[in-house]
């Protein structure tokens, strides 16, 4: 999935572009993808780590399809494994995510 700079785009353009990125990877319908995209901050700097995990955590929380959810979880954990610049916020999110899966708790927000 690409996380392109979109600070110069209008709301509609940005949300459409991000929604299309989501649809490229996960088989969600366009309406859901647009709503997921609208939850994101504008990508206006080269540091995309927060945007990336926020996007994935939103898909995980708000898409009901279990197949998609399990794919997203795998993707989050793979991304984390390969992440060069970890930080406390990310570490805590992953820890909360693992706890929520083990003990059947609400999925965390990034």
């Amino acid at each position: 999935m690409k996380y392109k700079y979109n600070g110069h785009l209008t709301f509609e353009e940005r949300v459409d572009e991000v929604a299309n990125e989501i649809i490229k990877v996960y088989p969600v319908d366009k309406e859901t993808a647009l709503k997921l995209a609208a939850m994101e901050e504008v990508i206006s700097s080269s540091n995309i780590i927060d945007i990336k995990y926020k996007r994935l955590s939103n898909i995980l929380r708000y898409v009901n399809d279990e197949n998609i959810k399990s794919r997203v979880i795998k993707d989050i954990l793979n991304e984390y494994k390969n992440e060069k610049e970890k930080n406390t916020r990310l570490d805590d999110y992953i820890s909360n995510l693992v706890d929520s899966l083990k003990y059947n708790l609400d999925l965390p927000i990034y």
Partner: protein
Amino acid sequence: MVKNKFGAIYSVDSDGKYSLTEIVFVDYDDAIDDFKIKTGEFKGDTKKEIDLIKTNTNDFLSVPNKIELEEEKNDKSLILFENDYLNEIMDKYDCEESEAILILSNKLIKILFEKDENGNLMTKEDDTELEFSLDDVNSIYNDYNDEEDEEQNYGMDVIDKVISQCLGASVRVQSMNVKITLNPENKEKNEAATKPSDNVFKELDDIKERALSNPPASPASSIDPKKIISETSKKIVGQENTIKVLVNQIYNNQMIIDDVLKDGELDVTELDSRKASILLDGETGTGKTAILKDIAKQLGLPIVIASSTNFSGTGYVGASVTDLLKDLLEQADGDLDMAERGIIVFDEVDKIAFQKNAIAGVDMKEEVQHELLTFIGGGEYEVAKDGYPFGGSVKFNTSKNTFILSGAFTNLREEKIESVKKSSHVMGFSANEEVVKNEYTVTPEDYIRYGLMREFFGRIKVLTSTNSYNIDDFKNILINSKISPLANFEKTVKMYGYKGINYSDEFLNKVAEEGISMKTGARGLQTVMSGILNNMLDGLINGEFDKDKPITLTPELLDNYKKIFTRKF
């Protein structure tokens, strides 16, 4: 419910190349997600024999993931198009038949439709292919996309749904145009709609001839700089002068390229002496990148932004120089001419400034500046195969590119502001009087003193800067910018069926103050509004707010906006 749809059947060969097999008509039953093909070679085949790639109901065509396509087990797949729009148009104008022209990357396919006695769309004749070159196709697309011809505009929102890469690199569906052949008895409706073409082939032949005799227009000839300045200023407010300078200079560079090229040959020396490189000075978060990206988008020029700190004495590390050019080529969809006119921005150029008497790092920074100067001077670079979609490497000449150096130059700014304050004090203003002068001037000598090599200013002919923001500017952005975080917040709220938002001046003030405190420029506003949205999101999605009136945003919402997560222990 069974719907009559048309779609494209394609296959993937062992090299991963896609090819379009046939356009077919399908009865699609959305209740059981199955279909039956009614026309052509695959008549009668269903989902069991052919993999169905689902489309979205709200958009004309979804773009399926290429990786997903490669995982399909069958060797044939079907993409269905939403032809409800065609049905609607045909009913509205009481048409007996209509035509769709699918413009692919290397061919044109005309499909004739008609309705059967049950009102279902059917193909009238076999599909017809016409072989055109890519330039011809682009010219035809531009002809059908004439925004000034309002009579054709009923099809424009179909054309605007550009369907790219859905069938892979070898066959790309670029657009679809719908032309209606009207029932000659309906004179009134005829007048309201576009006149039909009696002989589509003749018309297409005429277009082809025009395209071949008139080469595609360069960017400059169709641009209105005033319109671009106006549109960009509506998005990035408070930077009108900077936007005007950048638009006019980039536009002027394009005009110079056209002028130098009009004799057929590229005189690099003349181009180099007339074209301007630009230095853009501005604090973080004042819209430098947003302005450049928006201008490039409106001009239709590709743009790449790279950090100067990635250059080393031995070249560009992390990514090579040719990677930047490859990026430009990709953005230009493989059009080398367009890529060579693109904009290359070197950001953080203040970080490679050096002082000759500094203890460490001078040699390296000086080498880096030399490297950058060489690149800006223009040259020819070999860009690798996968940067050019039709195969083979390409020689990329950077003489026509517009180069922009940008940076924050924080120390220089602080020094200048301090100097202005001191000189106001010396001139006799007391501590209680307002300092009227809140601006300073910068010259190339200041940047040379700061640590940029004098040789840069042989090439940099334009210096411009973005203004720093204060609280009033932030409030202006929140209320007036087309990309305002507050306007975006309201649009998100409305997506969930609410009546929008209202807010007090106190709320605006608090958001602006919090935004300023982050010291990240206008990004601070996004962070604040995003934090508020984050806290309200569950409530919005689950309908916990009153849907009969706008949601009121209060200053208290900012008390908790920094809360990111709770940790169980």
